[in-house]
């Protein structure tokens, strides 16, 4: 990983649809080199996926997001890893993190409505072995997602000419 790799990663993180030719111009390296570097970054699983940041509320899907916190008894020899793997297999679970503090895991869960999120937690997560306690928070509004502001006005009003 060198400075150019970092720049490629930053540019792709901002917009993964940018073409190889454009990346080549932006980073001042050849298109061939860009391709090789991206392939290597994918191979090393540093680039995991290419996805879009979507404001689902605006898309009108009315999806509900829940933040679920879990207290978990770790497993001998495996710690938190195996239980994390089991939880992460549910398609409703969009992200899963091991965290410090009162709770051990923090999950981001989606559902069509509040009941669906609550049902998922009570029927699938809470009854699992080693889960001691759950706390469910329903997201009321998203203001910022993945570094992108979803609210208000970004940028600055400028006069058309200045020297």
């Amino acid at each position, binding site marked *: 990983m060198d400075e150019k790799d970092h*720049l490629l990663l*930053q*540019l792709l993180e901002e917009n993964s649809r940018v073409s190889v030719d*454009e990346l080549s*111009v*932006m*980073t*001042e390296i050849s298109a061939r080199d860009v391709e090789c570097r991206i392939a290597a970054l994918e191979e090393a699983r540093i680039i995991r996926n290419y996805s879009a940041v979507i404001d689902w509320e605006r898309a009108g899907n009315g999806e509900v997001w829940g933040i679920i916190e879990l207290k978990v008894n770790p497993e001998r020899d495996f710690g938190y890893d195996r239980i994390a793997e089991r939880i992460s297999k549910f398609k409703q679970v969009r992200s899963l993190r091991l965290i410090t503090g009162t709770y051990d895991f923090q999950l981001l869960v989606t559902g069509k409505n509040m009941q669906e999120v609550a049902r998922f937690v009570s029927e699938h997560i809470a009854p699992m072995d080693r889960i001691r306690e759950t706390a469910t928070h329903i997201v009321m509004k998203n203001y910022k997602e993945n570094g992108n502001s979803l609210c208000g006005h970004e*940028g*600055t009003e*400028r*006069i*058309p*000419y*200045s*020297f």
Partner: protein
Amino acid sequence: MRNFISKAAEAIPPSGIRKFFDLALTMDDVISLGVGEPDFTTPWNVCEAGIYSIEQGTTSYTSNRGLQELRDSLSEYLKDHYGLHYDADREMVITSGVSEALDIAIRAVIDPGDEALVTEPIYVSYAPCVTLAGGIPVPVPCREKDQFRLMPDALMEKISRKSKVLILNFPNNPTGAVMKRDDLKAIADIVVDHDLLVISDEVYAELTYGGSHVAPATIDGLWERTITLNGFSKAYAMTGWRIGYLCAPEPICDAALKIHQYVMLCAPVMGQIAANAAIRNGEDEKDKMVREYRVRRNLFVHDLNRIGLPCHVPEGAFYAFPSVTSTGLSDFEFAEQLLKEERVAVVPGTVFGDAAKDHLRCAYAVSRKDLKEAVIRIERFMSNLPN
């Protein structure tokens, strides 16, 4: 009634693009590449420091020189970043932007009749400030074939017995040119031989791509005869806060400070506090912005050359400076027609001096999306020009 306007005020020209400005204001959907300021807002942690200072009731004057803690931070910063050594208590004044710093620097050293050598193309303020101080601005052309750097022969040609000051602005507005260490050494020899003083406006220093900025005062023999000007507007996207600074050997600094205390008293306190936050905690945000400018420069300059507007790769600032010679239009004609027909605002080069004739200043301090759209419009405009 008498004509109350002073001869000095009459002697300086009005804005060269007032007409364009008024026209652009009446139009919708204008993409402006005519703006000499960042499109980013000030980093939020810097804004918060300013807001907090107001909440705390810090709304008074500061000392004329500026806040001690800001000067201390700057002294350290200049040493670490550029190898520049200025004492925070004796060789530095915080000003209301570099514009004020430039004015007091010129007034501190120019007597009526003195000649100030001003490189061209250059930002519009220098020559009028010299005129207002009673001096005579003498343009020194920087040529396209030299990537708009100042070359010793061009300087030599303009030096006279009345020459007192050489004004430099690198990285340059409007060309984006930078001076490397060897370029400056060659100029330093002439400056010393002819006993000149350098006023160096380095407000774009942080926006130097693919190499480090070289401050003229770090060249052997120049520190004692250089006034270094810099500020927070460009690097930290802080244009509206109006914070700059002047650094110079003590006697010159004291002279500038005297003028500053009578005309400005001090720079705005909340701006000074925000500037100190920028210097202490703004490095990451600044680096991000610089990285983005460089990416935009690469894209935009590549596109300009592709569509037939030849443009050297500017190594600093955030301006591309393409030539319009091949279109058969003058820079003014091109800029005016482009605005009217395709709603893209650019600044005709002539505004920045005769040496900038037949060029356009296009600021790439706009989003990549807008830059792309601007290129599409410029290309369409050019394809509709008669052959």
